[in-house]
């Protein structure tokens, strides 16, 4: 049996931290920071995900094999999203998007 490191106070602390981060994210969205907004919001989401993964999902007390799966999943998604988004963001020599006149909406 695994020795339990995740205790009730830690669970309550994590819950409060998640709520604080949620309202922080909400508050920052009201400031209207433009371009940086998406990056900040997603960074806060990543922090929240770590809290959920390590405390709520007990990753902190599990074997490395389980952590390896999480690390690989993160890497694959980062690769997938980064390479996909790199296409529309770096278009310079050909139209950035289809011409709406050529394909009007129904």
């Amino acid at each position, binding site marked *: 049996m695994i020795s339990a490191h995740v205790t009730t106070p830690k669970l309550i602390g994590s819950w409060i931290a998640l709520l604080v981060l*949620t309202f922080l994210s*909400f508050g920052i*969205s009201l400031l209207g920071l433009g371009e940086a907004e998406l990056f900040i919001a997603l960074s806060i*989401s990543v922090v929240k995900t770590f809290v959920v993964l390590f405390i709520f999902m*007990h990753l902190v007390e599990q074997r490395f094999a*389980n952590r390896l799966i999480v690390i690989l*999943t993160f890497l694959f*998604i980062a690769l997938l999203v980064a390479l996909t988004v790199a296409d529309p963001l770096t278009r310079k020599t050909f139209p950035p998007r*289809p011409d709406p006149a050529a394909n009007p909406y129904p």
Partner: protein
Amino acid sequence: MSAQRLVEQFETLEKQDHAARLAMWMFLGSETLLFGALFASYGYYRGMYPSGFVQALHHNSVALGTTNTVVLITSSFTVALGVHFIRENKARLAAGLLALSTAFGAVFLVVKGFEYAHHIHENALPAGMYSFVDQPPAGVVLGYTLYWFMTALHGLHVIAGMIMLAVVAVLCWKGRYGTHRYVAVENVGLYWHLVDVVWIFLWPLFYLTD
């Protein structure tokens, strides 16, 4: 209470539990990649149609979205507490917490249902069914299509998670799980936390950023 049965291919119960947990993490990894493909298409189309996309998302109710975020985070907390107490052999308490989490899942779906009803009323529907604004700027329809697809897929996961939470809650109450046997409860909890993590990303992408 029934003791956990050791199946033939494992030497010890500890190894058997580790295999069950590892398999759950692998399943969650593949689930995350399913959503990952949708997040990639979100990034692609948002990069292609920045203004139209944001215009579609502006119409979502931030108040309802934030309410749902708080509801799901709290449900994740009660699930984590439930798993904690079943390990300490407090089966009735764990059953109550898991049932409470199921109820939070239902609250989430009701709030989401109100949002969907509002969108349907305005004909802000995906793809070919869209007729909210006659001549939408390019990207608005794509924004709504991804909104519906991603939130509906997440909603299906909420329903699946609620069914599993309800089942383990009943089995906890009946005394099937306890200190001697709790991997199934842990794994259902892991699934529910994944549902929470997906929403933690859907919320800023569809409600907050502009």
